[in-house]
């Protein structure tokens, strides 16, 4: 228990620093800054207090907001991802995720990537539609959602296989 708190706290700080110091300055192909911190919602323990998870996610988004001067866009996107995570999990892993002995080890690679992709998609859609906040720019929003989303997904998949925890 204590170990898990420490590990997630460490991830939290490291992901904030990685996001604001490295990935916010990446500008891949001119304008793509991937949001790698979304992997926090993927890594966060499945069986945990949902209310606390939402508060932590809001805080994570809020700190990144302050660093990148984006009002409260990251906060609301992260909060939405945290709130929607159980629904997305049920969609990706079927009903058996509610059983006690469920862990990522029992799932296929495709299921995990789909789970990650959906989390990223929700995050991107909320973030960019509120950032631009205008229906006349719907094409720009879609371009940004898919451009940034795909790069984020590739990076997050790489990260998740690179730092995959041995024990869940």
């Amino acid at each position, binding site marked *: 228990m204590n170990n898990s708190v420490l590990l997630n706290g460490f991830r939290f700080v490291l992901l904030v*620093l990685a996001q*604001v*110091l490295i990935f*916010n*300055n990446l*500008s891949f192909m*001119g*304008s*793509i*800054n991937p949001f790698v911190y979304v992997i926090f919602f993927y890594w966060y323990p499945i069986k945990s207090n*949902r*209310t606390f998870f*939402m*508060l932590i996610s*809001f805080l994570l988004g*809020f700190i990144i*907001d*302050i*660093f*990148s*001067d*984006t*009002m*409260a*866009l990251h*906060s*609301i996107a992260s*909060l*939405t991802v945290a*709130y929607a995570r159980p629904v997305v999990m049920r969609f990706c892993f079927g009903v058996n995720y509610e059983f006690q002995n469920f862990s990522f080890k029992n799932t296929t690679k495709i299921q995990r990537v789909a789970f990650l992709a959906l989390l990223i998609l929700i995050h991107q859609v909320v973030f960019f539609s*509120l*950032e*631009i*906040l205008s229906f006349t*720019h719907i094409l*720009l929003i879609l371009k940004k959602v898919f451009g940034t989303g795909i790069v984020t997904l590739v990076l997050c998949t790489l990260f998740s296989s690179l730092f995959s925890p041995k024990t869940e």
Partner: protein
Amino acid sequence: MQRIINFVLRYRNAFLYGFLALISLIITVRSHSYHQSKFFNSSKWLTGNVYGSAADVSSYFGLRQENNRLVKENERLRKLLFNMKVDSIIQPLDSSFVAYEVLSAKLIKNSYTSPRNYITINKGRNQGVKQDMGVITTKGILGIVENVSSNFATVQSVLNTKSNINAKIKHSEYFGSLVWTAEDYTMAQLIDIPRLVPLVVGDTIVTGGMSSIFPENIPIGTIKKYDLNTAGSFYNIDVELFNDMANIKNVYLIENKNREEIKTLEARTTNE
């Protein structure tokens, strides 16, 4: 009563979501129409120091390039200085005649990909930075100071949909507003130029004299492309910026000493 409490407890996550989402929406939507949030911005102590120490490291990588740029500017300024008449050199050195004060600062955080870009610099209130000072680089304008903390400040970049700067075409003296449509970070848009004005692709755009923030004739960019707006009476001009917005290290802050006087005079005039 018990039922209400049970109901709230049962759906506490939904309530929490609604509550926090409302807060974020208020912060976000408010700053769409007003200024950047005064409390949550990167000029604060923690964020400023994190960016500052990261910039300390990364600034070494561009030193040679940056030196060349500064030497080039010195060369240009020397040329101006040597070609000036003698008495006009002596006069501006007396501080009571100076209309514009200049400070230098280093950029510690840059952003140019979102629709509302802000830049953070390493000088703040203690070093004499104030809100609404103009920010330029050796090549052209960069933005306007928006929030100041004791040792850092955030700058609203010209690449911000809220930015609106008075600008003119260098030779014809017709002026309009410089805005940004969030599409391309190398390009800003000049609007409100009447259709009778003759335009040539490649003309230089500079700051106009109508603003109490920037001095006149600071370079902005050149005309890349122009067409009439939907009503057909004004031009929409795409201006290619002189600044490479993705690669900026040192900036200058300009303070107009007469700004207070101009502002109070204008306020009094509109009241009457």
